[in-house]
């Protein structure tokens, strides 16, 4: 809700300022926006579908079961893979991570899950590629994955 208010508020203010300054240029801005939106439509729909499919199959309970049942190294790798693929709202992730931690998962497993979740987005990659190109997307996510593993390793040792 806060997001919606922030974005629409910001757009409202900018639109008013833009309209006051020049109607012509505002029209041009809308044209650019429309074109960009149409161009991203296929990748948008793809992301939507993939998100839906994955979350439908990998529910929080399913993840808890997968990560919870395995122990040690396997659990950590599994957490990294699930974290890289899925896109879960933070309101769901942190309670899930908290309960996994209490039910015996290691700090490393939990932090690898969270760091890969926020730093690697395989499901949003089609959209990222559309906007920023293949090379940028691959590098950002690939390096992010290794960074996530290292961060989780350090956290596992320190905490």
């Amino acid at each position, binding site marked *: 809700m806060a*997001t*919606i208010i*922030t*974005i629409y508020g910001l*757009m409202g203010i*900018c*639109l008013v300022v833009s309209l006051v*300054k020049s109607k012509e240029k*505002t029209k041009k*801005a*809308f*044209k*650019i*926006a429309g*074109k*960009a939106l149409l*161009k*991203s439509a*296929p990748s*948008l*729909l793809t992301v*939507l*579908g*993939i*998100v839906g*499919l994955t*979350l*439908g*199959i990998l*529910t929080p309970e399913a993840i808890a079961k997968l990560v919870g049942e395995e122990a040690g190294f396997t659990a950590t790798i599994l957490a990294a893979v699930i974290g890289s693929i899925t896109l879960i709202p*933070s*309101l769901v992730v*942190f309670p899930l*991570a*908290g309960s996994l*931690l209490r039910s015996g998962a290691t700090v490393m497993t939990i*932090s690898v899950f*969270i*760091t890969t979740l*926020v*730093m690697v987005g395989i499901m*949003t990659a*089609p959209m*990222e590629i559309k*906007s*920023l*190109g*293949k*090379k*940028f997307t691959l590098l*950002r996510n690939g*390096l*992010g994955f290794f*960074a996530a593993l*290292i*961060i989780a390793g*350090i*956290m596992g040792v*320190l*905490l």
Partner: protein
Amino acid sequence: MMELIKKFKFPILIVLAFAGLTFWMPDMAARSTKVTWDYFQEMALILPPVFILMGLMEIWVPKDKIQKWLGSGSGIKGAAISVVLGTLPTGPLYVAFPMTASLIRKGASITNMVLFLGSWAALKIPQLMVEIKFLGVSFTLLRFVLTLTALLLIGLLMDKIFEKSPDKAWLESTGEEATAKGPGKMKM
């Protein structure tokens, strides 16, 4: 017709996957459909204003300003602006991609944009609040510091890589406006 199929090949594949799932695992199909619908509503609400903001930015924000604030010479100040912009409560990551493309076209540096995207995804303020509540202050703080360090390193590394070999396909994939202005002006 063929072209249309080619353009929408992934959405078509997904529809087929949904159909298959409905046939074999109706439970999962129902859940997936609900999630997809929820996200569709969210996107339908958030994306139009995001793209309009992007359009306005393309038109109004002068290139030299972005270059000065977020360009390769902006130093620590530019990095700080990128991180702060990223941590604001502004919505899911996919919102940030078109904005980032727009900023890069205006002359923002790769390092700063990696910081921007990274903090958008990993260091959002509302997200940190929830994290502190469920995983504790020390966990959250440590992750924050380590993530920020990692993002900075990744950003610097990617900047070097792009400097050495710029992505040629990149100029096309970042939209017609960029090519219209001439690829020679792109600063990376």
